[in-house]
């Protein structure tokens, strides 16, 4: 067979078609959302982080950041308003908790091996997610710790 004939053979040869394979929705969602959990996690901890930063600046450096007093007043008024008491716990603890769940799901993979009856947990080293996770855990720990200590203090009075 000449090279030209071989070329013609290649041109006319039947090829496998992939029309039966639709674009997989799961891959599409995973790709488009690949950076979202970390970004959302950051938004969840912005307010509690700012609050904590203001507290730190005020009580350790005696430096009052402008918005801090307004923020405290707003929290206090929300606490006194019936039906609004849940806002500050949601802002300070609820959102970082949501950030924790979101980022744990983003980096952990659980699989159950039915033959060995073992649960395998793998953690992906995605540093942004891990950093946000640690920060969210610290925030929840600080606010829960504060609430706990305050409660004991009030009970002792």
């Amino acid at each position, binding site marked *: 067979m000449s090279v030209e004939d*071989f070329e013609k053979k*290649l041109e006319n*040869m039947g*090829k*496998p078609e*992939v029309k039966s394979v639709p674009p997989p929705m799961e891959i599409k969602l995973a*790709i*488009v959302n*690949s950076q979202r959990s970390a970004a959302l996690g950051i938004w969840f901890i912005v307010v509690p982080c700012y609050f904590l930063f203001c507290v730190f600046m005020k009580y350790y450096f005696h430096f009052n950041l402008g918005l801090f007093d307004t923020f405290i007043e707003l929290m206090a008024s929300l606490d006194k308003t019936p039906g609004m008491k849940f806002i500050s716990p949601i802002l300070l603890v609820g959102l970082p908790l949501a950030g924790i769940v979101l980022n744990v799901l983003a980096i952990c993979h659980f699989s159950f091996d039915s033959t060995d009856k073992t649960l395998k947990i793998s953690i992906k080293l995605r540093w942004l997610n891990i950093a946000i996770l640690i920060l969210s855990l610290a925030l929840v720990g600080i606010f829960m710790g504060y609430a706990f200590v305050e409660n004991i203090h009030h009970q002792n009075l």
Partner: protein
Amino acid sequence: MLLEEEKELLEKIRADKNQFGILFDHYYQPIFGYAFRRVADYDLARDISAETFLKAFLKIKTFEWKGIPLSSWLYRIATNEVNQYFRKQKYRPEKLGSIVKGESYFFFIDNGREELEEELIKHGEFLEIQLNLKKLDTKYQEVIALRYFEGRDNKQIADILEKPEGTIKSLLSRGIEKLKILCNQ
């Protein structure tokens, strides 16, 4: 998709990354088909195409519009992924692992495997050529696959591989000669 439409889509994606889904829906099949015809393996082709789109998604903000179709850019990324597989013979998608959650993830998307395996069996002549093509250097593999499996002309191949048309022509003619010998024809 027309060149103008692609340019518009690119601007939309830059403004809102969710619009990338349109590009994915439009080009997933051609890219998956290209990967499948190159490697003749359903799972591998699926990994390669997912990695291709993930890399495109991560790099699309830096993509410079020079009048070259987005499809050529996607084919270029896919070609690099396929070449990476042929170099290492063990494909490990770099980016995909960070978003795909293991085997359970693929449980949902395995439809179509049987049909494609049947398609391969039906095209024995193609499979024979494809097997021999794999024995060639990747620089010949890519031009032959793009020309004869995907039906691209020299200009399009030159755009995809970012090589001059003259180079493509000579790679094609040398590659075909080598492939012909391997096929005993």
